[in-house]
């Protein structure tokens, strides 16, 4: 019996680590493929473009992963990005000092996240429905703030941050910001008690509550963090393109969510790692880049992303269900043997 148990556990363990390994493998294949297909792929400039391209989505995906791990979802992230970008433009136009404007944007993002959190935690509303609502509401606010205007003349020292790279490297500055935050989130999720609590909430909300985990406060904080970091993504976007528009980042929420799911965070909650999400972001970014370099049309990328997303869940499910079916059949055979060939009806 105990041998059997260790057997199951190693299999379980193997299944758990395998998703990151598989993503890493796919990543290696993508890089190798990219290098073979296109000689420009492994150039320094290309990598610096590649990394910069998905930085806003990557930023939003970090807190989003944690939210999904606790069994909730936040679809309003891209709208908060747009709202923050619009506010930044408006404030800059109104001659507000840039550091203050940035602070106000972050606060607005946190407030927007708090609105989500409040509705979800206090009123116990389903987060899917709430954030579909705030997806429209907050984007609406962005349009109300900025309308058809576009603010462009941001100070060069800030836009330089948007498009510049860290001196002597090919790493874009916004991506460095992402790396820092990814490390912070990695530590938070995997090496602090907060992370332990988050997994417990996602694994079994009731048991977490019975263990004294303050899940209302944690969820609230997560949504606030998601709002603030989405606002930060809005600021990065604004400086990267020196453009503040109400429609900035429309539709990014789907890309961020796709990256989170592909990264191995399950929609039921309780599972997933920051490493997995970072790998999946890189994977999507690289595939995107390779296809663009090869002049493959943009639409193929959508198909690839969608397919990866579905395959990431379908494959493990198929394996599990095949195994399960085999077990049931085995069991029935045993019963037929013991139970002296009997059937219902």
């Amino acid at each position, binding site marked *: 019996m105990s041998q059997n148990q260790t057997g199951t556990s190693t299999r*379980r363990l193997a299944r758990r680590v395998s998703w990151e390994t598989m993503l890493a493998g796919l990543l290696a294949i993508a890089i190798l493929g990219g290098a073979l297909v296109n000689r420009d792929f492994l150039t320094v400039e290309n990598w610096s473009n590649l990394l910069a391209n998905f930085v806003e989505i990557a930023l939003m995906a970090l807190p989003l992963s944690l939210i999904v791990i606790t069994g909730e979802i936040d679809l309003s992230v891209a709208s908060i990005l747009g709202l923050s970008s619009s506010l930044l433009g408006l404030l800059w136009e109104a001659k507000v000092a840039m550091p203050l404007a940035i602070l106000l944007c972050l606060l607005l993002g946190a407030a927007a996240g708090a609105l989500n959190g409040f509705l979800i935690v206090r009123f116990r509303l389903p987060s899917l429905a709430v954030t579909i609502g705030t997806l429209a509401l907050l984007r609406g606010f962005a349009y109300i703030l900025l309308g058809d205007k576009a603010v462009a003349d941001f100070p060069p020292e800030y836009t330089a941050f948007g498009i510049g790279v860290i001196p002597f490297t090919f790493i874009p500055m916004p991506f460095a910001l992402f790396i820092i935050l990814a490390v912070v989130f990695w530590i938070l999720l995997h090496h602090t008690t907060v992370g332990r*609590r988050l997994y417990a909430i996602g694994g079994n909300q009731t*048991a977490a509550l019975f263990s004294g985990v303050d899940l209302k406060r944690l969820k609230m904080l997560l949504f606030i963090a998601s709002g603030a970091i989405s606002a930060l993504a809005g600021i990065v976007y604004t400086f990267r393109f020196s453009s503040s528009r109400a429609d900035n980042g429309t539709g990014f929420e789907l890309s961020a969510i796709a990256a989170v799911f592909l990264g191995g965070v399950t929609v039921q909650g*309780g599972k997933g790692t920051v490493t997995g999400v970072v790998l999946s972001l890189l994977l999507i970014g690289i595939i995107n880049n390779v296809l663009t370099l090869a002049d493959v049309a943009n639409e193929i990328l959508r198909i690839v992303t969608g397919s990866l997303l579905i395959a990431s869940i379908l494959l493990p499910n198929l394996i599990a269900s095949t195994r399960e079916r085999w077990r049931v059949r085995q069991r029935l055979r045993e019963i037929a043997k013991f139970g002296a060939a009997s059937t219902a009806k």
Partner: protein
Amino acid sequence: MSSEPTIELVDIYKSFGSTRVLEGVTLPLFPGEVHSLMGENGAGKSTLVKIMAGLHLADQGAIRMDGHEVLFRSTAQAQHAGVSVIYQEPTLFRDLSIAENVFMHRQPKTPYGWIDYAAMNRAVSAHLKQLGVSLRPEDPVLGLSIADQQIVEIIKALTFEAKVLIMDEPTAALSVEEVKRLFQVVERLRGKEVAVMFVSHRLEEVFAISQRITVMRDGRVVGSGPVKEWTTDEVIRKMVGRSLEALYPKEKVEPGKVVLRVRDLRRAGVFKDISFEVRQGEIVGLAGLVGAGRSEVARAIFGIDPLDSGEVSVSETTLRNHTPQDAMAAGMGLVPEDRQQQGLVMEMTATRNVTLTVLHQLRRFGLVSREKERQIAARWTQRMLLKGHIEEPVNILSGGNQQKVVLAKWLATEPRLLIVDEPTRGVDVGAKSEVHRTLGQLAKEGMAIIMISSDLPEVIGMADRVLVMHEGKLTAELSRSEATEEAIMFAATGQAASKTKLREMKNVPDPQE
């Protein structure tokens, strides 16, 4: 003995993992008879019910209906064969009407192929009237009391024209009035030659309703026969079947200072006027029937459910905020009744589960130290003599070992007061005695313990004092010497207050309000 049994279980064996739940159980149900199945928690009654319902497959043995062997591989097959089951927790569609709940998936149709709502409502209405229930078939299930939901389940079984009706603790959540109504229905079914199996803990009910009683213990049938061959004492003796002293190693400890004091706790519709104290080194049993409000009181003390009024103080300090965090800070621990739903995160390792309550102890420089994590988990699981690796997810552990993990996780908080809710439910005998040994030892070390249990011998064996609840109120406080099964049952069934009512239970016309 009227005739051939309608359904008969022959030599049934069933194991879950390493735990053997049923060992060679044989049980016949006869037409027109109510057959009561009794036994302690974990005796295997529920598993037996689930096998008859088609939810579990027996490992060995056969089910015979009208002399033919059958194999139920799904609930639908069992239903089709004429076996209806009413579970303790009704499984209903709360958004749909009563009539639709009864007829889901087999609604009557008009000649045009539309659902014949009129016919459906008529049929259900007739049943409702027969049962003397003032519900309308169009009413939605949402908002019905548990008792009314139970009625819906019964009508469902009736419309199936079931030959076999199995009721798994149907009265657990019912009031005396409602039980009376239910028994009238059962009498009527008996008249229609239905074979009824009645699973209950309430001795009075069992003697009032049944023609035959079977007692199970540890997965085996230890006694079976017509009701007139049984006495209450005999049933209890068979159910317990072993000497209490050997099993329950509670040593006499001189109670110390008051650890917990609760005053006038009230939660509307659930419980009221709850006041008691617990002292150091004391095990206070909280007894009562399922649904009497015991777990609800425990949850409210621990801060999970809100209180409408009342005061909870630990070591003379009144708790201000009513949250589990505060309760834990004050030195409280709660081992909840449902270990899978409330006690454990099933997919996490034992280590992570154990340390979930003491995360602050794991920090080193603000980060989680895996070493400390492992040390703490190892210390407490070893104390509980956990069998199994602590780095494995708990869902592969046996029930007993899972329960040990839950206990370990609360012991790790080193509480002053530990509330244990059904600590040995569904746990095999070995693990059970280990749990008891640990609780006894903890009390000896000065911990105050509240033990909620439906397992009367356990309560009697372990508790220094027994509080009994009935319908949301404390009805008795019994010292160790006063606490006999009879005394507890008396208070738990509210008999002290209304002894006559139960005597009337059998056949008194229902006074319509």
